[in-house]
């Protein structure tokens, strides 16, 4: 069998396009695979120059190369194949890889060439190269830190930004793992996420965490991690993106601190603070806000409703109206006084002030903050001042009145002295002289009595620190009945004591005795001549206050005529000879001094009822 025949046989079954050329570059034969690759008919290449398969521009260089090769022909292995540009019959060029082997046949050098079209492979390679370069560029020059991290945490590749962020050089980082430079408090959550990704529970994760900078300080980062797997799905490595958010964290911390500071300042002033995120309808209530109403920190939620449901029903409408007026920008801030329900079921007056500090894009309020002040405290103080003022004014009026009474009484007596003394020398006779002396004596006695009465009044009015104690009203009435026993028997007075044993008053014992004695003896003194005298004592409670009524069936008083001066000094209304006009005045003063009041109802001929309100401290 001829060599070329056996070659042809081998060629025809080879997986590659193949041809054989002689030393002059003439194609001895080519297999069908080659002719197909280059677009020629079967056997049409035999006898043609090898350069027919080379692009025109390269023919010269190729011819030169071929001649040099033939001087020292050698094998070129497949793996060491060289890229050539090849030309198809239709002129199209393509990248080809060529492997050569040479042998001698009857003294002639013959070169065998295997040709492979590598256009596709080259294109793929180029694309990969570009892609890789793009990735490298993006990786190295990224504005944020990036790293490839092995599944056990070792840094495989790191970029400049990451190095800057954590302060280590590339070499230092590649020698360590992320666990080493992570803040101990954040390691668990990071590792937990790593394991979840490795287990396939999640594909990526993003967390805010802290690294420890090489210089020791804390670096806050936003970390985004994804896992790269091979074609079989086995984990290869992580790609981590690390954004330095220390500045943001610092700003956040500063903001929080500044908020904490004003919160502290406001709370320190005794005011409660609220902070309303309108979009989420979340409302923060400060500890002071809660404690003002008697609540513990955990007992009040974070909704608008927590406030709204505690506002007194009579106040809520005005509250919401004031709020919406501010929201509509009719007012520059919101202010409202309302009652809030405390934990103990009582209501507390609150001064509520607020202001929208952030507006949404829709022109609606986004965030509103405000304060709560306990105005009960302020009002209480104000009330004390007002009360003091009222007491002082009343005291002053009483003193003025008293001064006039004193002046009047002393003047009337001194006037009489003067008058009588002047008349003494004009007495008609000894009898008249004697009469005048007696009148002088009478005047002196009367003056003495007047001074005693005035003194008694002064005692009541100036004694601001009178002792008080809890006293049984019923037993004091019985005691008064004993005191008046003589008159009661004499006039056959019927006394009805309907006061319950448990009715107690907080009073000065002497005053209570005096008050009861005055009203009851008044009832006897002004009894109706045609009726059996009757004095009825009853108590009633009105709005928690205890009232004592002393009702008689006597001759009564014309209140239209005398009402205004009933309790004045030296006022009598009946022309009764034993009426001194002192009793009711002193009684009224004693009742006033104990913080109470007295009211009178009467009609001439049908009787009188005095209704006494003692004071606030009674049962």
């Amino acid at each position, binding site marked *: 069998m001829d060599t070329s025949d056996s070659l042809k046989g081998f060629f025809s079954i080879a997986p590659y396009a193949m041809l054989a050329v002689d030393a002059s570059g003439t194609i001895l034969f080519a297999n069908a695979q080659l002719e197909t690759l280059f677009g020629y008919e079967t056997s049409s290449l035999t006898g043609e120059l090898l350069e027919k398969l080379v692009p025109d521009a390269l023919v010269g260089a190729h011819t030169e190369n071929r001649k040099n090769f033939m001087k020292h022909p050698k094998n070129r292995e497949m793996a060491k194949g060289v890229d050539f540009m090849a030309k198809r019959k239709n002129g199209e060029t393509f990248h080809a890889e060529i492997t050569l082997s040479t042998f001698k046949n009857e003294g002639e050098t013959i070169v065998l060439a295997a040709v492979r079209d590598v256009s596709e492979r080259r294109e793929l390679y180029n694309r990969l190269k570009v892609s890789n370069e793009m990735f490298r560029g993006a990786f190295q020059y990224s504005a944020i830190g990036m790293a490839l991290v092995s599944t056990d945490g070792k840094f495989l590749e790191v970029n400049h930004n990451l190095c800057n962020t954590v302060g280590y050089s590339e070499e230092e980082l590649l020698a360590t793992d992320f666990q080493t430079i992570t803040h101990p408090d954040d390691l668990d959550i990071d590792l937990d996420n790593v394991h979840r990704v490795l287990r396939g529970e999640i594909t990526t994760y993003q967390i805010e965490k802290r690294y420890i900078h090489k210089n020791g300080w804390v670096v806050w980062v936003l970390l985004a991690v994804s896992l790269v797997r091979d074609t079989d799905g086995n984990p290869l490595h992580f790609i981590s993106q690390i954004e330095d958010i220390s500045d943001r964290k610092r700003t956040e911390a500063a903001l929080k601190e500044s908020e904490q500071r004003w919160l502290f300042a406001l709370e320190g002033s005794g005011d409660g603070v609220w902070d309303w995120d309108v979009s989420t309808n979340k409302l923060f209530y400060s500890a002071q806000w809660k404690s003002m109403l008697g609540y513990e920190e955990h007992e009040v939620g974070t909704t608008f409703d927590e406030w709204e449901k505690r506002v007194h029903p009579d106040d809520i409408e005005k509250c919401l109206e004031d709020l919406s007026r501010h929201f509509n920008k009719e007012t520059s801030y919101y202010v409202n006084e309302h009652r809030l329900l405390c934990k103990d079921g009582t209501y507390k007056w609150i001064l509520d002030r607020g202001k929208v500090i952030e507006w949404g894009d829709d022109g609606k309020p986004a965030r509103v903050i405000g304060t709560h002040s306990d105005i009960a405290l302020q009002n209480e103080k104000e009330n004390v001042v007002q009360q003091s003022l009222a007491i002082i004014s009343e005291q002053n009026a009483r003193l003025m009145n008293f001064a*006039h009474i004193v*002046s*009047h*009484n002393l*003047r*009337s007596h*001194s*006037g*009489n002295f*003067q*008058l*009588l003394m002047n*008349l003494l020398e*004009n007495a008609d006779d000894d009898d008249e002289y004697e*009469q*005048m002396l007696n*009148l002088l004596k*009478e*005047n002196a006695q*009367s003056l003495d009595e007047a001074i005693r009465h005035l003194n008694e009044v002064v005692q009541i009015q100036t004694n601001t620190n009178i002792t008080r104690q809890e006293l049984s009203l019923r037993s004091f009435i019985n005691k008064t009945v004993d005191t008046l026993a003589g008159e009661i028997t004499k006039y056959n007075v019927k006394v009805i004591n309907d006061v319950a044993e448990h009715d107690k008053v907080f009073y000065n014992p002497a005053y209570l005795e005096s008050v009861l004695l005055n009203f009851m003896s008044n009832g006897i003194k002004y009894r109706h001549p045609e009726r059996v005298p009757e004095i009825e004592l009853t108590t009633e409670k009105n709005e928690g206050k205890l009232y004592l009524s002393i009702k008689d069936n006597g001759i009564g008083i014309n209140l239209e*005529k005398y009402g205004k001066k009933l309790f004045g000094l*030296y*006022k*009598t*209304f*009946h*022309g009764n000879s034993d*009426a001194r*006009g002192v009793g009711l005045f002193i009684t009224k003063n004693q009742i006033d001094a104990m913080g109470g009041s007295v009211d009178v109802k009467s009609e001439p001929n049908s009787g009188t009822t005095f209704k006494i309100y003692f004071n606030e401290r009674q049962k």
Partner: protein
Amino acid sequence: MNDRNDVAFIVDDDQIYVFGLKKLIAINNLCKNVLVFENGEKAINHITPIIKNNDQLPDVILLDLNMPVMDGWEFLDEFVKIKPQLSKKIQIYMVSSSINPADIEKAKQYEELSDYLIKPISVEELQRVFSAAA
């Protein structure tokens, strides 16, 4: 005193004062008939039945302020009611120990009052009162 007043009323509950005043009027020969009422009500009750009887009506009334039953003010209020029936001019003087400005001010609002005099009343004042009425 040539033109002596015929009738004067003293309305006052202070018996010592009344005694002295009557004596003073008698000594100075200021008035023939002096009637005393211990409160306003008694004076009004006396005047009402003799309202057309000018001879019995007083020329001068010396009226105390503070009295039981009906005081000086109330007497004036009653007097105003019966005044239209009177044909005689009656001079009324408020005579009181009160130097309370409120009382003096209130007195000015009664046009029936000729003056407000403060006790003790002097002889000179008394003479002026009665000469004015004459």
